[in-house]
Structures are given as structure tokens and as C-alpha cells.
């Protein structure tokens, strides 16, 4: 399994860090959870320890893909050392329920703690990468995904409004992250991939959300950061002719370090999972993405 166009050979989502297996090496114990996922100091401690363990050039936050959904009102099981935060129960029976959810309040909850954690890490001169999730990942926590798939097929206007709400929320979130001085924002939405949606539905999603969302980011780009795309997202853009690849000369270094080096030089990079810390750019080239 790999990218349809990028033709990456390894599975694209195979680089998760197993906190449970590493807890002794990290010097944390079961009693630290789940507070360590939801408290600024705990978040800073855990992300720093993981960075050191991986010999990574940056600290990565958050530790899950539930932050946005939780901030919108989703019910999350915060987990423990073995299993991280994940959705617990759906709160929306339909898309109208979703549209009635309040906007994200960045001054409370885990999202607030994570943003403060970025500021704390930056004050210690750490480089920080922050993941943000796309509409399918967010909605999948809040409702049965069949509701979304049906709407894409049969309720065009409604899904447009839903995507609009999510886009507004994510653009606001990006502003908050910029203010916190994050170095890299990594965007992914694994459910919105060719394998799951197929060409026709994928094209609709790219047309209705992914492309306009990234165009908006492109237009308002802040040179102090890099926007990294999950390679599945890159693939979806290439498959629908909404982006081009431009090879950029770099050094034969680790992909993560190369991404750091691209800050201020390129806007979008996205040829490999950003969690893959063993991928070396042997040909000294990295693929930048140009949004059409």
C-alpha cells in the first residue's frame, strides 16, 4: 500500500510512536496518565522526552487527533499510557447537529493547554511541529461516518456548509498556532484518501475543501513557518491536478531536518509522513508542493 501518485513504497501511516512501550525509557509511569496528555506542563515534559528519545529535530504536538473534535464538543476518552486519547461516543446524529455546535474556544480545555505548551517549548528554544486534522478526521469523532459519505453524495449544499464551518475553524486554529510561534504545521486527513473515497468522491472533497483550504493558506502565508502535508493529501491534490511537485535541492539529510531547513524557503512540503525519522533524502532533493 502506498501513494497512488507519489508511489511511496512503505505504508504511509506506519510511524506512530508507542508511548506505552517506551514509558520506562521516557521515565514516566502509569499514574502520570491521562494528566500528561491534558496539562501544559505534562504535555511539555512528554513531548520533550519523546523528541529526545527519537533524536528528532522538533517536538511534536498534540499526541492524538482528537483536539479539534473535542474543542467542538466531542466526547473523548483521554486514555492511559497504553492507549492515547480517542473518540468515545458520537454527539451528532446528523450534519445539522454539527452545524449547531459552538465555535472553538481557544481559551479553555486541552486545545488551550496545547497552545500554551507550544509557547513554553518555544521559550526553551525548541522547534515545534503541530498536527491539525482535516474534516473527515474531525467529523468521524463526532458522528457515524456514513452520515458524511451520504451527504457528499446526496446533499451538496449541506456538505458545502459543513466544510465551510470546518474551514473557518481550522483557519482560526492556524492563526492561534502562528501566534504561538509554531515552526511547522502538519495537515492530514487519512480518511479522505483515494483508497477510501475513490476517485470521484475524492475529487469532490478536494474541490469543496482541500484545495480552497490550502489556497487560503497559500494566499495568507507566513514565512516564519512551513506547512507540511500528509502524503495522502499531497496524492489527492496531484490526482485531481490541484497541485504540482517542484523538486528542491537540499542536502542528503533526514527528511525531518530537511523540512526544518525549508522554513522560509518553501510553503508546502509533503512527500513522506513527517513521523518517519529514518527517511533520508539520498538524492539531496525534497518535493515542494505548489498549489494550483
Amino acid at each position, binding site marked *: 500500500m502506498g501513494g497512488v501518485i507519489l508511489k511511496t513504497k512503505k505504508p504511509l501511516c506506519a510511524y506512530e510512536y508507542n508511548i506505552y512501550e517506551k514509558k520506562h525509557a521516557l521515565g514516566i509511569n502509569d499514574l502520570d496518565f491521562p494528566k500528561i496528555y491534558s496539562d501544559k506542563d505534562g504535555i511539555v515534559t512528554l513531548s520533550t522526552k519523546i523528541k529526545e528519545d527519537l533524536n528528532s529535530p522538533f517536538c511534536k504536538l498534540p499526541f492524538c487527533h482528537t483536539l479539534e473534535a473535542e474543542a467542538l464538543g466531542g466526547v473523548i476518552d483521554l486514555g492511559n499510557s497504553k*492507549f492515547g486519547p480517542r473518540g468515545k461516543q458520537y454527539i451528532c446524529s446528523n450534519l445539522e447537529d454539527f452545524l449547531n455546535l459552538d465555535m472553538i474556544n481557544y481559551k479553555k480545555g486541552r486545545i488551550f493547554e496545547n497552545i500554551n505548551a507550544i509557547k513554553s517549548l518555544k521559550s526553551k528554544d525548541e522547534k515545534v511541529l503541530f498536527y491539525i486534522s482535516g474534516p473527515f478526521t474531525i467529523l468521524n469523532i463526532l458522528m457515524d461516518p456514513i452520515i458524511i459519505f451520504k451527504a457528499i453524495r446526496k446533499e451538496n449544499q449541506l456538505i458545502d456548509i459543513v466544510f465551510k464551518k470546518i474551514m473557518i475553524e481550522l483557519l482560526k486554529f492556524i492563526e492561534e498556532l502562528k501566534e504561538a510561534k509554531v515552526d511547522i504545521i502538519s495537515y492530514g486527513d487519512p480518511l479522505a484518501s483515494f483508497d*477510501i473515497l475513490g476517485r470521484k468522491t475524492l475529487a469532490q472533497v478536494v474541490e469543496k475543501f482541500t484545495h480552497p483550504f490550502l489556497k487560503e493558506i497559500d494566499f495568507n502565508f507566513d514565512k516564519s513557518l512551513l506547512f507540511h502535508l500528509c502524503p495522502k493529501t499531497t496524492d489527492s491534490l496531484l490526482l485531481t491536478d490541484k497541485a504540482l511537485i517542484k523538486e528542491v535541492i537540499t542536502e542528503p539529510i533526514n527528511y525531518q531536518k530537511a523540512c526544518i531547513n525549508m522554513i522560509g524557503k518553501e510553503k508546502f512540503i509533503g512527500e513522506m509522513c513527517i513521523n518517519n525519522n529514518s527517511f533520508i533524502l539520498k538524492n539531496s532533493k525534497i518535493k515542494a508542493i505548489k498549489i494550483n
Partner: protein
Amino acid sequence: MCSNKANLLNKLSEAVLEMEEDEVVEISNEYIKSGYPVIDAIMDGLVDGMNKAGQLFEEEEYFVTDILLCSDAMYQGLNILKPHLPLEDGEKKVKGIIGVVEGDTHDIGKNLVKIMMETEGFEMIDLGRDVPSVKFIEEAKRINASFICLSTLMTTTMDGMKEVVELLKENEIRDDIKVIIGGGPISKKFAESIGADGYSKNAIEAVKLIKNLLNVS
């Protein structure tokens, strides 16, 4: 009359294949009024449509979302037709348990496998997602399951599959229950390493695998 029945069955199958749940409902109600045997509507209408969808999925014409929407249409039809089935004649269905292992909430693939298994005539008990390992064992014992299907999309939760296999051994029921696994990070090699009976890369393969393991046609 025969051509009307054939016509209705054909329309039912097409409506499932085209994911038109409103049409499935309408045709199912029309079929009930016609008085033809309900089992034929289920098998030669709904299941036929689902099988065609499965075929398109194998040919990579249909994708996961298409199959989910086809199944949604099929289940709408089943909701109408099933209550009109005559009382069961005692034929026992082969029972299976399915679920996403603990720590993981990605269930689209699991739902697909469940749908295809049910289409093939298996009775599936769906434990949902984020299922503790011990729950698989409890349910397997309760319903006298012949097989367990385990799914995960995350590498950090794969060990849960090994736990299920170990718990089956501890409960001395390992030999009575086939275990198949699947999901993004899963492989045949991993299946062998944990002592599972098999690995399937997609829902269609899962059905073939179980039929092979259980020696059913």
C-alpha cells in the same frame, strides 16, 4: 407474474448497487404487497445487489464509501423485508464476532467486513470499536462463535490482537475458534507471529478466508 417478480428483483438489486435507499424502500414495500416469497427479495434482490457491489470493489470501480452506502441501502431493505420472513426453519447460521481492538476507533474497514460477512450468510456480532481483548472472549463464549475478526488501523494497538489469541488459549477455546485479522499496518507475517489463523487485506478476502478456514461454501 414471473416477469413482474423478476422485474422487482432486478430493480431491487440495481437500487442497492446504485446506493438508492429510498428506491430500495419503495421497491421492498411493493414486493411485500405482491405476495412473492420474501426470502427471494433478500437473496436475489438485496444480496444480489450487494454482491455486484462487492465485485466492483474487487475491480477497484467501487471504493469503501460506495460499499458502505450500498450496504446502507441493503439494510434499509432488510428492515422492511425481514419481519415478513417465515419463522426460521432451524437452520443455524455460522456465528462470528467482529470488532476493532482496544485503543482504536477507526471502524470503517471493520464495518465493511461485517457487511460482506452478513451478505454471505454469516451471523455477525459486532462489538464495535475500542474493544477490550477480554470482551472478545466473553462474547465468543456466550454466542458459541466459530470465528473472530479483529481490526486495527494503528501500529500502537496491534498487540491487542495477540492478547485476544493468548486469552483464547488461556480459556482453552483456541482450537474451537478461528481468528483472522486485518487493517492498515497488519500483514500476513504479523498474523503468523501472533498465532492468528489468517490475514486478509480487504473485506472480500476476509470472507473468502473465513469460508476456507471453516470449510464452508
